[in-house]
């Protein structure tokens, strides 16, 4: 016991040797918590504890922490807790949502944009570079928004359209169809490149065009008021000079019908095209009224539209049109 007192005293004074420490360790190990407690309490209750070394600043720090955990105002602590919980939920949700939206956005960007028209439809589109395209019926235009205005302006096209290409000398505008490729820098022209037609045609209004046949690789430069024709079978490119007024006659206008009677429609078409139309069907459907648009420059398209509306099949031979019953 005396040994323990001495060792303990030396320990408290920091005058132990390593050997003595080992002894003290051994002694204390033998003691129960109660015995240690009794010994300590005796020393505690005595009045000779030196507090001069205690840093006041640390005591103040400790007091602050004590106050913080014991005295937080009740009326606000529930609010704080609620806010903490809400934040813990909302913040991850926000992060996940923005990731998701960002990904979705990127995905949208990488998709291809397709604009197409059905029979009898027209469409106007403005491309990201400001180029304006008027699509005629049964035409399709494709481009990739992500890459469109970077090093080149590439579109895939089939059908007929009028192009008003925004001038940009650094980024050429490329149109690729099944048979031809068109390269321009800033131009206005009409391109007809329908897969079902035996020829592809371009009529240039303004600017300059490089016209390439994809099969023969032949490349020709077109000047304004010229028309270039590619014979798909022979691969021959022909350039002819033209009158600008007839560049895109289909853009001029359509015949628009509102609740029109069949006979009136037939008469209007006959006079517009200078054809004669013969109907071989007796069907009562012809009593129906028609509302729709019919082109003024494409007789076969015009007849197809009417035919579809009235379940008739048109047959065109020169200036004679026959409408017979569809099956």
């Amino acid at each position, binding site marked *: 016991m005396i040994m323990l007192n001495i060792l303990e005293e030396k320990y408290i004074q*920091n005058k132990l040797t390593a050997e003595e420490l080992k002894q003290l360790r051994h002694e204390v190990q033998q003691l129960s918590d109660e015995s240690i407690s009794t010994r300590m309490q005796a020393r505690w209750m005595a009045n000779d504890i030196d*507090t001069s*070394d*205690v840093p006041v600043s*640390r005591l103040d720090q*400790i*007091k602050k922490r*004590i106050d913080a955990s014991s005295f937080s105002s009740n009326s606000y602590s529930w609010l704080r807790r609620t806010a903490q919980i809400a934040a813990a939920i909302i913040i991850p949700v926000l992060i996940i949502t923005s990731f998701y939206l960002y990904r979705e956005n990127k995905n949208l960007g990488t998709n291809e944009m397709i604009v197409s028209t059905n029979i009898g439809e027209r469409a106007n589109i403005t491309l990201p570079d400001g180029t304006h395209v008027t699509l005629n019926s049964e035409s399709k235009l494709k481009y990739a928004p992500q890459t469109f205005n970077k090093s080149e302006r590439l579109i895939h096209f089939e059908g007929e359209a009028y192009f008003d290409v925004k001038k940009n000398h650094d980024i050429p505008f490329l149109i690729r169809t099944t048979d031809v490729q068109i390269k321009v820098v800033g131009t206005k022209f009409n391109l007809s490149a329908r897969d079902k037609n035996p020829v592809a045609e371009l009529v240039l209004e303004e600017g300059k065009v490089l016209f390439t046949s994809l099969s023969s690789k032949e490349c020709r430069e077109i000047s304004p008021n010229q028309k270039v024709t590619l014979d798909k079978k022979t691969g021959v490119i022909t350039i002819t000079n033209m009158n600008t007024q007839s560049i895109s006659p289909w853009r001029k206008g359509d015949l628009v019908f509102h609740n029109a009677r069949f006979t009136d429609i037939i008469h209007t078409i006959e006079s517009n095209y200078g054809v004669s139309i013969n109907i071989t069907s007796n069907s009562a459907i012809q009593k129906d009224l028609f509302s729709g648009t019919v082109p003024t420059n494409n007789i076969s398209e015009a007849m197809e539209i009417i035919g579809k509306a009235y379940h008739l099949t048109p047959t065109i031979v020169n200036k004679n049109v026959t409408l017979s019953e569809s099956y």
Partner: protein
Amino acid sequence: MVRQLKNGSRTAFNTIYDMYAARVYAFCFQYIKSRQDVEEIVEDVFIKLWQNKNTIRNENSLQALLFIMAKGLLIDTYRARLNEPEYEEYVSYFNESSFSVQDTSKKIEYDDFCRELQRAMKKLSDTQRHIFSACKLQQLSNKEVADKYALNEQTVKNQLSLSLKILREELKNSWIWIVILLNC
């Protein structure tokens, strides 16, 4: 004042803190040697005091009550400290070194010692660090260490004494800085 505390007076609580906190701190420090640990106990004691203010019987027992609230953590930490190999290193360092640390005003604190030891250990090679750690901190015998690291015992002894030399050199250098700081 105790009565006021029982009624929930914060002023009374503050006064009691001013009266006793330093004493609690100094007393626990005698046993625990680490300022970090002591601060934790002081905080804990007074938080408990406020939580249990109703159970105080009279003024005389306030001092005793404080001890009761401290003793759990105090005794556990005391036991742990005695068994701590780092503390043994601390004690032997101050015994064996010629550095004049008998003068208590220049005494290096245990917390700082531990931190410096960690830093000095980084200066050892991997092998030395392993050996030092195994011998001194894990308290393995030289033979056990030799077996564990597939070295012969003499190598272990040599590496160990080399490590100790390096560490003491390192620590001596950093003590100089610490001493200068303390004297500012």
